[in-house]
């Protein structure tokens, strides 16, 4: 379960935690109702589970409601999600009917009484149609890249979005022109969660042994779903090129193969291409493998995230937090996390990735420097405490529209 605010002091310093308390005092007693579409699984639920108790600790009455819907509704919102990312889909009047009916039943069922209604992603966005009756200020938190939607997708959600007071996006390139203010708030990792807490050498060794990964050679790792956009075949090829000069093992670990036919196909191709090489470890992990992912990242000499297209790419922050040198594709939110040759390496090709694997394995001092800088950058910008601070600032902004300097 979530940690107490005081437990973050040794990590971020007393000043940062004090600031959170001061902001909390300014918002004391405000009721903030978070609404998303699932209580577990996925990044949004993971953040809310940890954030809501912390908001409560500083005096905010933070609630969490979840929209319910039929299979048809969730099939539609999955299409909507993909179409907002650019996959073509035709939205029919029937689709609109399914969406509106589910919204209506949730409006009846949910406890929507609050000062601030904090709506996460498109599934609950329709609730805003009753804002006049419900009252309060309304924020729409979008985790999706809206810059290049398929035709019809943006038109589907735009009438809802324009009714909010504020919108929140994860990266500047994910937005589009909107009639309402847009705030940039990056997602975050929790340094006290199983995926990121410091593990002992014994814990790491035990997990690596269980997974069949040896410690006799440096480990190069990519953690991500078996998805073409994460380019696992490109990673394998880059590693094969690098390995001609520097001896090392490769770990490709992730999920997504069990419930996604394309994922299963990609996994099969990667396995086939890797052949019987004992230095390649391909692991299809269940989504609950947080400690396993932590152990693999912690044991790695180099971490790769060779994404061709990316959301925010929080696996990069996870690896940087463990002070690892990271080689990543300059996609989505990754350039916000890595400054090239300072806090990591940004590459564009398989050959470039191979070149930097060799360099970083051969120059461990430079690699350590990148890892150190990356760790400091994540501590200042991508931890849960910064995320909480920005959300509270967004709540405060609702009472001060159109001002540049707000005195609290």
């Amino acid at each position, binding site marked *: 379960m979530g940690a107490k605010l005081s437990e973050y002091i040794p990590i971020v310093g007393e000043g940062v935690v004090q600031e959170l308390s001061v902001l909390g005092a300014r918002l004391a007693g405000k009721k903030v109702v978070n609404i998303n579409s699932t209580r577990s699984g996925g990044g949004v639920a993971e953040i809310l589970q940890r954030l809501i108790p912390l908001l409560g600790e500083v005096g905010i009455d933070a609630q969490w409601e979840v929209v319910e819907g039929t299979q048809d509704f969730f099939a539609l919102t999955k299409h909507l999600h993909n179409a907002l990312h650019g996959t073509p889909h035709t939205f029919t009047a029937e689709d609109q009917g399914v969406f509106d009916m589910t919204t209506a039943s949730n409006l009846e069922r949910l406890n929507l009484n609050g000062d601030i209604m904090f709506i996460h992603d498109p599934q609950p966005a329709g609730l805003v149609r009753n804002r006049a009756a419900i009252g309060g200020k309304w924020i729409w938190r979008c985790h999706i890249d809206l810059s290049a939607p398929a035709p019809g997708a943006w038109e589907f959600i735009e009438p809802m979005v324009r009714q909010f007071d504020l919108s929140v996006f994860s990266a500047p390139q994910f937005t589009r022109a909107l009639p309402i203010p847009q705030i940039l708030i990056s997602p975050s990792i929790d340094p006290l969660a199983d995926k990121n807490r410091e593990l002992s050498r014994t814990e790491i060794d035990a997990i690596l042994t269980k997974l069949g990964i040896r410690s006799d050679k440096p480990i190069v790792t990519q953690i991500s779903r078996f998805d073409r956009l994460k380019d696992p075949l490109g990673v394998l090829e880059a590693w094969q090129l690098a390995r001609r000069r520097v001896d090392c093992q490769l770990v490709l670990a992730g999920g997504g193969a069990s419930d996604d036919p394309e994922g299963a196909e990609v996994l099969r191709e990667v396995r086939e291409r890797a052949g019987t090489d004992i230095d390649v470890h391909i692991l299809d992990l269940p989504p609950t493998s947080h400690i396993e992912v932590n152990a693999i990242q912690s044991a790695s000499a180099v971490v790769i995230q060779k994404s061709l297209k990316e959301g925010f790419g929080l696996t990069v922050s996870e690896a940087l937090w463990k002070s690892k040198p990271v080689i990543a594709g300059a996609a989505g939110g990754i350039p916000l996390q890595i400054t090239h040759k300072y806090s990591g390496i940004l590459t564009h090709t398989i050959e470039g990735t191979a070149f930097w694997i060799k360099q970083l394995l051969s120059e461990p001092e430079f690699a350590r420097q990148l890892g150190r800088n990356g760790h400091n950058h994540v501590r200042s910008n991508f931890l849960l405490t910064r995320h909480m601070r920005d959300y509270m600032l967004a709540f405060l902004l609702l009472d001060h529209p159109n001002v*540049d300097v707000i*005195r609290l």
Partner: protein
Amino acid sequence: MNESKDLTIAKQPFEFCSRLNLTLLTGRKAQDLAEMAENLRSVPGSVIYHHTHHFLVQHQHLSPEPPNDFAYWVSNILLDARLGEELASIDVMRFSTIHELREALVRVIETSLERSGEVRAAPRGQEFHFMRSVSFVMPTGVRAADLREFRNALMFVSLSAISYHMFDARLRLETGDNDFAAWAEGQLGEKALAESLRTLDPYTFTEEGLRRRMINLVEQRLGN
């Protein structure tokens, strides 16, 4: 001055405030230098402030360079080393208003456009996104009535407090001076110390380095 001697007590103690910024997206972007110059002329002042100051906050460990987002983008995305250097070396301390800083940025870019005649475009997805900062200023409850209390406070106030009094007061609130120098001179009569604090170029330090340098200056005055 010896630290054990009596110190001048300020009628108005220095009240440390801290500043937290929230970033707002404007929806505007530039793909090349011509679009960059065009936007720079018309964006709100809070956009200029954001892109010349957020690096200091977000990359506390990376400063002293690159000092502003414009220089970073031109050097690393447009790969124009000369213009990148010219933008990086704009002396922000010379200007007492955001308006003057804006003019200087536009002038440097326009001169470069005239010189080279070519318009280099950023690769797709790496356009420059214009953003602005909204600042939330809060009292920290920390006060200093004399130089010794001031030095002690400098040792533990947050970096955002130091940068607020050093950067925002002068340029954003257009008081023409940084708060520390104004207080040292106005309240304590410390003209020489105020001048040292005034001529300090905060943009060439990391925030932690700036804190150390200021403490040194005050300690020298205290005779330590």
